[in-house]
């Protein structure tokens, strides 16, 4: 159904973006564009050609060319995705936005940044920090990922409890549609109900509906202080019951509420040689608060800390400086690395359940874990009900056995339980092609049909990022 990329088509691409921005017939150089951060090799696929355009006009020409010859185009950011979204599963053209990496404008009067999609997310904050501003989007890969990818995936991450996810800060987009039209959606306006909300149709469309070439980002005042609480609980139930209480009784919205089950923090603490008395704990919460004055934060951590102690916490540790804060975040951040020592093959999941259902979900996970003899450490963003349940290959299985269990038994079962609890299969990593086959478990047929209709309307030739989402 698609055509192959011929040397003649490559010549036309060179015509558009210039010789040095095309990679063709070079296996080594193209290999890097064949995968993202999904560990399993089976999700990778080589492109036929890689192009690195520098403008919306060039991208428009590329899309028109691709439509003419029926060649699939897969847009790509930093390649730090976790659902295979940037992998050219049908071959064809990989369109990398790496050359479009300029911060075009910091508009302090309107608290807006206008950036190109290839800007590294953290770069934005580095530039505006001294002006007392910050961009609240905070995926865990903040030091490598591109903001274009964040918008395409509607990335979540560590600060979502208080600040929400990426989409909340996107006020305008310049988008090249699959057929090569250039749309200018929104801008620096704070309110806009003129017509359908196409911006938020594009946000989270995983590169299937358009390619962003300019992004308008809302900026916020940068909080001057932060405090972290590490709270040890005897069990998961006690830990999770605290989460709504913080908001209802405490009337406080933390920046993040991170959850770790015992399998997660015990492995991480042992790996780090951390000597806090973690052995007696069954669950941990890491709660971060931010604000402008130390005094205000002191009041807040007292409220939350006391709430925890009154509701069965074993101990509350307070970290209000870089030494202690680094020490407790290390536990959370090293879980994946610590488990890699046990087995490097893991399936990083990002399921979501209503917060109150986390204990029930954890019970189900335990059962599945026992049934297949696969450890499933669970950690993640409790404040959002977004849990990284991470099946780790038991070394006793061969790779073949493992993949069979994972894809055909374990994941379907896990997803089923999630959906039964009113949850869904992905909270921040996206569907891509890793979870595509499971989409119908989570969404009703009519919903998927509406999505298909949208896709058909924008991309009649099914050129842009085929094989993803739907």
């Amino acid at each position: 159904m698609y055509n192959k990329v011929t040397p003649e088509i490559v010549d036309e691409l060179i015509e558009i973006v210039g010789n040095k921005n095309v990679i063709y017939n070079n296996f080594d150089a193209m290999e890097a564009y064949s995968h993202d951060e999904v560990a399993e090799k089976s999700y990778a696929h080589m492109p036929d050609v890689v192009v690195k355009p520098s403008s919306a006009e060039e991208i428009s020409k590329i899309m028109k060319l691709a439509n003419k010859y029926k060649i699939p185009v897969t847009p790509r950011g930093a390649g730090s995705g976790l659902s295979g979204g940037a992998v050219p599963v049908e071959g064809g053209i990989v369109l990398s936005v790496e050359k479009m990496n300029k911060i075009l404008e910091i508009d302090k009067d309107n608290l807006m940044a206008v950036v190109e999609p290839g800007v590294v997310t953290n770069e934005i904050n580095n530039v505006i920090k001294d002006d007392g501003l910050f961009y609240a989007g905070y995926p865990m890969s903040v030091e490598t990922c591109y903001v274009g990818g964040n918008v395409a995936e509607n990335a979540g991450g560590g600060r979502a409890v208080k600040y929400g996810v990426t989409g909340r800060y996107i006020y305008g987009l310049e988008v090249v549609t699959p057929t090569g039209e250039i749309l200018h959606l929104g801008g620096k306006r704070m309110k806009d109900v003129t017509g359908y909300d196409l911006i938020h149709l594009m946000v989270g469309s995983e590169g299937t509906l358009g390619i962003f070439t300019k992004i308008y980002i809302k900026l916020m005042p940068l909080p001057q202080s932060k405090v972290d609480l590490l709270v040890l609980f005897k069990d998961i139930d006690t830990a999770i019951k605290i989460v709504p209480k913080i908001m209802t009784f405490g009337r406080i919205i933390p920046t993040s509420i991170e959850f770790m089950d015992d399998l997660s923090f015990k492995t991480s603490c042992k790996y780090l040689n951390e000597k806090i008395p973690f052995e007696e704990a069954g669950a941990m919460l890491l709660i971060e608060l931010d604000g402008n004055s130390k005094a205000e934060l002191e009041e807040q951590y007292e409220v939350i800390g006391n709430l925890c102690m009154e509701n069965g916490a074993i101990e509350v540790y307070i970290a209000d400086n870089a030494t202690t804060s680094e020490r407790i975040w290390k536990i959370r951040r090293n879980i994946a690395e610590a488990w890699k020592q046990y087995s490097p093959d893991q399936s990083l999941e990002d399921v979501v359940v209503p917060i109150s259902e986390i204990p029930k979900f954890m019970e189900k996970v335990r059962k599945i874990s026992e049934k297949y003899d696969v450890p499933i450490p669970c950690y993640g963003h409790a404040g959002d009900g977004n849990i990284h349940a991470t099946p780790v290959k038991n070394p006793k299985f061969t790779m073949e056995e493992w993949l069979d269990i994972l894809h055909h038994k374990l994941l379907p079962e896990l997803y089923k339980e999630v959906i039964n609890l009113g949850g869904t299969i992905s909270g921040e990593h996206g569907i891509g092609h890793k979870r595509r086959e499971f989409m119908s478990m989570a969404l009703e047929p009519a919903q998927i049909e509406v999505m298909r209709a949208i896709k058909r309307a924008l991309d009649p030739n099914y050129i842009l990022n085929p094989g993803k989402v739907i």
Partner: protein
Amino acid sequence: MKIVVPIKQVPETSNVKMNPETGTMVREGVESIINPLDLYAIETAIRLKEKFGGQVIVISMGPDKALEAIKEAIAMGCDDGILLSDRKFAGSDTWATSYVIANGIKQIGDFDLVICGERATDGDTAQVGPGIASFLDLPLSTFTSEILSLNDGKIKVRRLVEGGYEEIELELPAALTVVKEISDPRLPTLRGKLKAKKMQIPVWGPQNINADEENLGLKGSPTRVVKIFTPKVTREGEKIVVKDEKTLNEAVDKIMDYLIKKEFI
């Protein structure tokens, strides 16, 4: 058992970035913390208290801001704190600093142990601990890595020296400087923080510690800084990227050439 722990507040440096132009640390907006090596002294003192009973008092010389460090130590489990703060203390070198802290400790009186960190990560002299011991005429174990026993008015310790360890025994009262090996510092708890918040930390000036004004600050410091300058250390030597078997071999060839040329093998 009464244990005094002198601590210092220092700039936090672990997250500091280097300025690639000048090769120096970017120190703007850097927060202040307890000298990381003092945490081991605090932990050691608290453990001794937990085992033998008694009281741990932290003492620090510095500006008002150093109260934060004292309160953090109390939140970890120390019982009391004293801040030595006065304009006249400013500009002290290690001699004058040792003098003030030793006089503060004399004022506390009746102590069994003085436990210091190995050195501070900013000044990096490791002279104040032994200096305090000298002023107080105390037996001293530096680079202490383990406390072996404490009884009958004596403490037996192991200290880290070149090529191994030494064991020595000191009569109490005694002074120790401790290294990281001795303990893993605990984290401050909510209970500790609440206790520290309520506590009034006394601030002592020269008159509270019977100090001779001639021995204070710049006037009391035998040393003078002549100049401070910034060394530039960037070499930016050759860099080889290993991509496959071939480049791996090339990289190892390069290392071999270097080692042979410089006569390391």
